[in-house]
């Protein structure tokens, strides 16, 4: 049997039974609740210059998904790829199997990615469906493509952040705290700083890909010029590849000394 599949299957089975999965499933429902409130509030304001559905979609995507759920889910799953095994002292069982350590990381990374993607994309699909239901049928049809692009951006973000947080989990002891600090300061605050510094965040490239029409991207456009879509996609791919390679190298070389 392909060892990466075996690691993936075991990791999925383990993760599906954790409290983390239960809690994050509930957390992923929060943006849906937020979207419902958003739509309800918009309906109440109808006729008074209320926000359009597509405008609301931009805000839902930016604040509920990119800035919150994407970071939260990938942070908790990806830092746990190695972190859980160290904390629970179970990594020994994996490292004495005839599977290269880098393959063990990759199999577990794919499992974390599958679970993160499932939660984020399912939640986003439901939220977008809620938004579309508030649209007129003619406009809803024209907005579907935008929502598909949004889902693709979230998928790219899930892969890139999982790679980044996966590396942090493989390299550092208090990975969750480090990742949390990184997400709250660098990825959140620096993204909104004017100038070129924001180009050093993953978030910048995701926001550059947002398909929402000009004037509908809230405060973002006042602060930063987006990177072109092809360059943004290539950069995200490079970030993903780079951090996955670094994580594989780290796991292959690093000794994880478990306390007795």
């Amino acid at each position: 049997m392909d060892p990466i599949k075996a690691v993936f299957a075991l990791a999925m089975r383990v993760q599906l039974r954790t409290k983390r999965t239960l809690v994050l499933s509930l957390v992923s429902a929060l943006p849906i609740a937020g979207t419902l409130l958003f739509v309800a509030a918009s309906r109440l304001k109808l006729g008074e210059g209320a926000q359009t559905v597509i405008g609301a979609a931009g805000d839902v995507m930016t604040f509920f998904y990119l800035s919150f759920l994407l970071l939260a889910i990938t942070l908790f799953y990806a830092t746990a790829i190695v972190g859980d095994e160290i904390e629970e002292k179970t990594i020994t069982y994996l490292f004495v199997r005839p599977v290269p350590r880098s393959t063990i990381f990759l199999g577990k990374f794919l499992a974390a990615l599958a679970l993160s993607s499932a939660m984020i994309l399912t939640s986003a699909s439901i939220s977008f469906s809620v938004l579309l239901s508030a649209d007129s049928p003619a406009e809803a049809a024209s907005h579907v493509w935008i929502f598909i692009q949004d889902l693709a951006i979230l998928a790219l973000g899930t892969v890139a952040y999982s790679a980044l947080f996966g590396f942090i989990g493989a390299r550092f002891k208090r990975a969750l705290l480090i990742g949390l600090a990184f997400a709250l300061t660098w990825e959140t605050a620096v993204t909104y700083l004017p100038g070129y510094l924001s180009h050093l965040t993953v978030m910048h490239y995701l926001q550059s890909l947002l398909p929402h029409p000009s004037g509908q991207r809230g405060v973002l456009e006042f602060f930063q010029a987006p990177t072109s879509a092809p360059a943004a996609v290539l950069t995200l791919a490079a970030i993903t590849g780079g951090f996955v390679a670094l994580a594989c190298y780290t796991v292959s070389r690093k000794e994880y000394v478990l306390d007795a």
Partner: protein
Amino acid sequence: MSTVQPHGDGNGSGAGFTHLPGAVLACRGMSRWYGQVIGINDVNLDLGPGVTGLLGPNGAGKSTLMKLITGQIRPSRGTVTLFGETVWDNPNVMRRLGFCPEQDSFYEGLSGIEFVTGLARLNGLSRAEAKARAEKALERVDLLAAAGRKIGGYSKGMRQRVKMAQSIVHDPQILILDEPLSGMDPIARRASIRLIREMGAAGATVIVSSHILHEIEGMTRSILLVHNGRIVAEGDVHEIRDLIDEHPHRIFMETGDARKLAEALVRWKDVQGVRVDEGGVLVETIRPDAFYSRIPSLVLEQGIAVESMTSADDNLQAVFDYLVG
């Protein structure tokens, strides 16, 4: 003639185990430090098929030695090879290795069968083959009846047994067991000792660590004595036993029926003292081998549930003090 031989010459020329033609495990000048602390110091060792006991008090360096042998950590100096190959991140070696670690750690949400099957699949087995092998391994450790239950709900002894099952599921050629009998009930302990002996007799190289001589004695006559990070002696277990028997052996037996157990034990001639403590009975005996062998019968005949037995290593420490001067 004494069969216990000093080992610390540092050049691998100790009697009994060194330079075996069919050596599976070879350590050369192997040392390992944790910062300023020495875990293992200048170990030279060759081991071939059969069961070898690694005996030493807690903190002697047994677990560090096992982690080095299984490629969990790397030597600070020197080398360790299995089947002539370096161990670290080497699938060729790991394919033939089974390891039962000391730590009581599991994927708690998985059942016993899921745990063993999942790990067996990492050994390249198909789903069906892995499941069949897992069932066989769980049967060998007498855990098949509880295989469908979550590990989180297992007793300490059951956890030890499922840990052992994952280490033998792929029929390894070298099996490393770190304190495998710790916390097992008397019947499981006896069954596990029999299993280890069978593995050794079948041609596997088995290394078992313990701080309890009696446990090792039931499995093999070949022992290595580890103390302060060094292999201080190697040889026949009975020689060591004679030394140890001069010191009383203390065993704590965990039971819900401490008074009844104490009443039964106090009649035994080789029992020097019995004290009812919280959660069990603390026994002092001068004949641990005879004492241990009678426990399963006591459990079965009088219906006293003994949850686990643990032994302090103070008597072993005394022997080491004697050996190392």
